């Protein structure tokens, strides 16, 4: 009677409701947020931008699939994470990047940066940043954006704004109109300086709560604070905070690089600190290093601080003073 039943039912642990949202949905939302910049990039740079992005995606997905075949893992190629990473890497490449540069970059990004550590969720540093840093160090000549854009003229000074300010001093910022900088009419990678379009995408992600508000805002705040201090100390040497926010990859870093899930903290206060530190480091690198735009190194540096920062945790409800954890 009671225990010999005609039919067995499926059992599982609670909860039995799931939010109808998967990893690939999240990654596709990121791609949607990057889409305005992608379209603007193709509009501005022509088919070269499409070529760089297409090659990056192709190589990244291919490497991901190959790596998955060699070392099978739960991080499947179908979850779009490689596509997002590839677009982010492509955004930082100059528009005349040769195919082999993208191939090497994709290899480092997917195989070394991502798969070797165990895939999405396991890597300690942003794979796209790791790959870009390696390319930048190995082939510095390939990343002279000014030379690569000789053929294009947007009616503004076709020199990397940050490079010009670095060599000529803060006064050189007047060479550029802020409107031009905002619209992305500045010499940079194919997507990382399309400030307005990136801002639209970033705010979209923030609005749908897929990235926290703390990290990007603190990043921009940290950047502005440091720029303001430096500007006070040496007005002739450094440009205004607004110039630093609008030029190069500042907005890109704040909304799309510093908020990368795996390498950024989870708790609110660490997120604020992490972002602030990132913006601050970025300004220091821009001011005192040989690199004109230091986004990649600033992000890699704060990535290292992530596990340490995330130790600042909110108190668990109803638990007496913690002590060890």
């Amino acid at each position, binding site marked *: 009677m009671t225990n010999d039943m005609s039919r067995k039912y499926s059992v*599982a*642990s609670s909860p039995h*409701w*799931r939010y109808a949202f998967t990893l690939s949905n999240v990654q596709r939302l990121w791609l949607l947020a990057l889409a305005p910049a992608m379209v603007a990039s193709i509009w501005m740079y022509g088919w070269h931008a499409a070529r760089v992005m297409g090659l990056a995606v192709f190589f990244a997905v291919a490497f991901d699939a190959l790596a998955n075949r060699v070392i099978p893992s739960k991080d499947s190629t179908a979850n779009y994470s490689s596509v997002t990473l590839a677009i982010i890497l492509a955004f930082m490449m100059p528009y005349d990047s040769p195919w082999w540069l993208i191939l090497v970059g994709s290899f480092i990004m997917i195989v070394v940066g991502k798969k070797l550590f165990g895939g999405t969720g396991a890597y300690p540093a942003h794979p796209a940043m790791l790959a870009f840093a390696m390319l930048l160090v190995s082939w510095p000549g390939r990343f002279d954006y000014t030379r690569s854009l000789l053929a294009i003229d947007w009616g503004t000074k076709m020199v990397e704004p940050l490079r010009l300010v670095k060599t000529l001093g803060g006064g050189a910022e007047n060479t550029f109109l802020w409107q031009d900088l905002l619209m992305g009419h500045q010499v940079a990678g194919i997507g990382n300086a399309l400030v307005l379009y990136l801002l639209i995408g970033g705010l979209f992600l923030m609005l749908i709560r897929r990235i926290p508000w703390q990290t990007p805002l603190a990043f921009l705040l940290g950047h502005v604070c440091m720029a303001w201090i430096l500007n006070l100390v040496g007005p002739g040497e450094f440009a205004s905070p607004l110039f630093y926010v609008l030029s190069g990859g500042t907005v890109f870093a704040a909304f799309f690089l510093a908020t990368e899930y795996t390498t950024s903290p989870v708790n609110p206060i660490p997120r604020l600190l992490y972002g602030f530190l990132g913006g601050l480091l970025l300004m220091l690198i821009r001011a005192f290093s040989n690199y004109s735009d230091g986004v990649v190194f600033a992000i890699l540096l704060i990535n290292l601080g992530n596990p340490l920062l995330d130790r600042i945790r909110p108190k668990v409800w109803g638990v007496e003073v913690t002590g060890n954890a």
Partner: protein
Amino acid sequence: MNLLQAIFKPIAHVPKYQSDGAAIRDITDPEYVVIPLEYPGQILFKPEVKAGDTVCQNQIIGRSSLGSCVHASISGVVKEIKTIWTVRSFNVPAVVIERNDQPPMSMDEMFERYGQPFESASTIQKLRASGVISSWTTPGRFHLEADVDEYPEVKHIVIKGVNEEPTIFANEKLLEENPKMIVQGIRLLRDIAPRAVISLTAPPRLVEWAKQQFPDLTRVVGIGDEYKDRIERLVVSRVTGAYVPNTMPYREKGIGVLSVEYLLTMVDALERTRPFITKCVTVASCHESRSVTVRIPLGTPIKTILDRLNWPSKDYARILVGGPMKGIAQYSDETPLTKSSHGLFLMTDDCVPDETVLTCINCGCCTKVCPINLQVHLIGRYVEYNMIEEARRYHVEACNECGLCAYCCPSHRPLVQLIRMCNQSEK
């Protein structure tokens, strides 16, 4: 369209259900009932009947060492005493009674057989004789019957007029249907704990009504229909101002928590109306966001309820006792419902979520929605890699198992299951 809605909804937004608005429906005629003689970790009854005996409704069929009783919920013949699997998958002894249509036993006779006539019995004896066990400790993992010889001093009593799960409306309906008895119940509580502050939680639409109906109450607190606002420990904390973690019975902080249904059974017991032999259960399914509330004799198998409602059990792939967030999946539809079952939730094949466990991407949704600030993203990964000791440092034991973390995880990780694994593995 659905995708758009999913995109813009706040992350911890669990679907909402509506009560059907109809009166509670009585189901009185199951072919048989199965009444467990043990609630593991809580109470064990010694049977007072044997196979072949004829029993009447209300008759005592088991008694614990402290004199708490369990009763026949229908009149009939004891078919056998055997072991069954309970809702929570415990193997316990139970009495199987097959229905015949004898009249019920009178309450006076029941009390006489108990050995203490109603007039001379103390309050606690009346409650024990009627199968109503200590309210101040329910629900609690540490509830032992022997702990409550006397009522402890309670400073605050919370009456739950709202169930925790979004699909269960039993308490809400009982509140609406029995205002007179609740007034009586509140008076009884006042007698038992004269100095206590008594609060009632109610759905927002009933707050004003409840204030008028129950002037004896100190407070009526409206509880919205958002699941995260209905989690019991947090509701109690909002009402009383003291958070009692899951690891501690409410009573330790001088708080008594009882549901409207419990209050009504208490009134029944002290007014000599009937012992604790019926239970209100809300039945809902994943397709229509509506539900039916029924009153059943204790020990009615799930199958009987569904047959009487014309919701054939063969249509469903998964049957939960409780609601979708905390409910327990049953492998069989013959499981009898007991005193601690408040609802049934039925899922068809297409509603059952895939159990595709992907890697954690550290997005932090789980930690963000956790109502008690657990570091779910870390705990989940520690337990996944069998680092139980490390996970314990993050106060896993405080988890209420509300299920919000697993609900919103985009990797569909079984986070609650991992937490349970951690809590139940040996030190």
